[in-house]
């Protein structure tokens, strides 16, 4: 390495380069870019994302490519095993299971996404109002949360489901009424944490307005927590819907959702187990993929946030 000739002229003064002193020799990356790179390196997350996209595509395009719709009964072709005519077979009314499964997936996803969206809206609003206003308002709001957090969610959902007319809207409302509390707590904790951090203090000392502190510092830094938490509320909403439909108080036949399909498959587990397996596999795939993707996002963007 050191085979260069040492000559006298090399001992002249070097030009001072003020810029080089402060040079940072690698390109700077924002937290988001860094996280994105980490997420892409996580093979499990990439595969999970791909599978989810395929499932979503099937949920929307699946019924369209089939020759049957999800509700037409055909008593001449009940309990057909999966085959070229009916890819996933037919159920006890001769309805095409392929169409029903993908239609059901669409309904389940729709319910879950809307419920998670409502959770997000209510939870983020409640949490940030509580954290930003502070003082007595915060104290009262937190007492309310502390009481609500003590109630098992599913009990509220079940009670609401009994009171309100059965249907998709009811399911969504029932789930959102109990679901937002967790999001509210997370958002409040995160904002409180940020509020006390030096960079916010520094911004305040520099005379930044409250509005700007909220827009430029608090919101962008809370987005990670919100997104990650949403990635966990979607599968849990899918679970709740399926669970309620399975025990018979969610959606009912002839509507289809994954829970309804699993329920009707379970009725004929002795003779036609494929009617149970197909929707079961779909729900398991969705849940597993969301779970892996959620973990991947959390690890990539917020290594500190672990359950």
């Amino acid at each position, binding site marked *: 390495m050191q085979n260069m000739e040492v000559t006298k002229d090399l*001992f002249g003064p*070097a030009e001072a380069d003020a810029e080089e002193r402060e040079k940072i020799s*690698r390109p700077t990356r924002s937290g988001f870019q860094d996280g994105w790179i980490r997420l892409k390196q996580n093979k499990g997350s990439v595969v999970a994302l791909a599978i989810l996209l395929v499932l979503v595509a099937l949920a929307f395009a699946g019924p369209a490519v089939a020759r049957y719709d999800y509700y037409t009964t055909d008593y001449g072709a009940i309990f057909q095993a999966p085959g070229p005519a009916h890819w996933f077979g037919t159920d006890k009314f001769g309805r095409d299971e392929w169409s029903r499964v993908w239609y059901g997936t669409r309904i389940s996803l729709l319910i879950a996404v809307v419920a998670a969206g409502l959770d997000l809206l209510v939870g983020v609003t409640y949490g940030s109002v509580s954290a930003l206003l502070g003082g007595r308002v915060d104290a009262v709001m937190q007492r309310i949360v502390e009481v609500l957090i003590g109630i098992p969610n599913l009990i509220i959902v079940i009670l609401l489901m009994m009171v309100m007319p059965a249907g998709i809207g009811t399911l969504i409302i029932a789930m959102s009424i109990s679901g937002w509390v967790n999001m509210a707590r997370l958002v409040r904790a995160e904002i409180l944490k940020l509020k006390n951090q030096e960079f916010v203090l520094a911004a305040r000392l520099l005379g930044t307005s409250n509005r700007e502190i909220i827009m430029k510092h608090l919101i962008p830094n809370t987005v990670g927590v919100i997104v990650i938490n949403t990635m966990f509320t979607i599968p849990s909403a899918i679970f709740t819907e399926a669970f309620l439909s399975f025990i018979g108080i969610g959606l009912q036949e002839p509507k289809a959702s994954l829970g309804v399909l699993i329920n009707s498959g379970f009725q004929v587990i002795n003779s036609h187990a494929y009617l149970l397996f197909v929707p079961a596999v779909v729900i398991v795939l969705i849940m597993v993929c969301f779970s892996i993707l959620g973990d991947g996002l959390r690890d990539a963007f917020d290594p500190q946030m672990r359950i």
Partner: protein
Amino acid sequence: MSLLEVRDLHISLQTYDNVVQAVRGVSFSLEPKDTLAIVGESGSGKSITVKGIMKLLPKTGRIDAGRVIFDGRDVTEYSERQMRRLNGSEISMIFQDPMTSLNPTMTVGKQIMEVLREHEKMSAQDRKARAVELLRLVGIAYPEKRFGQYPHQFSGGMRQRVVIAIALACNPKVLVADEPTTALDVTIQAQILDLLKSLQRKINTSIILITHNLGVVANIANKVAVMYGGQIVESGTVDEIFYEAQHPYTLGLLASIPRVDDDSGSLKTIPGTPPDLIDPPVGCPFAPRCDRAMKICRLLRPEHTRISGTHCSACWLQHPYARQAAGKEET
């Protein structure tokens, strides 16, 4: 023969997408009863160097080259099992943050006795007696009562005393203190350093003191090595470093120690930032920040030049050509 000799040690750390060459050819030796201070700013590789010697590197760390000779034994190729016999008994370590280096769910007495149980043949009663004695030795009042308490019942300074008691339990030949006072209040820092100094006299151990604060070195060390960018840039006795320093980085560090008699009103600093060791500079790591940098400094890494029997500086300014050039300018 030296008690501890480190020759041309290279250590790299794997990050998730890069390799950091944290230590790039460090050599030094430690004699019995020496106190060697390794001084450098954060990221200079000083802590990794000693962790490498004790084989306590994180999983991502690797010794790439170099030898470590301890008490006449080449421990470079030692297995984990062999190393375990040395660690804690013949060579032991004090960590930076006493708030986190004690197990929160174990009484301090047990934590002291644990190391005795590992390395010394003693009865349970003897171990307990020795642990209480150690607590008294490091200046903890009511040692019998404190023996059964948990770390959270101790203050930071007291916890560091407990850590020192653990480190000294088996009368080690070398005690490595990795920034032992950085996490403590200033008033406590001096107490801990005094304690180390007096204990060293009592039990005849050698100390490697790692610090980024040149100010704490003068009172306790007899030798100093200054590290920068994963290398030792200057080493010598404490007097040579404080009064006859040659390397511009050492001079910069000395100038930046705040002084009571300085009324210029501002702290002196060394402008710039340390080099990125993922892509280390080919020449002298300090060249970009050096006021006296020459063309060669950017191109070639300077060799260690002996200034006296004990004093070395890795700087091109020590080269005869540079002295000639400097001489010419003066005339």
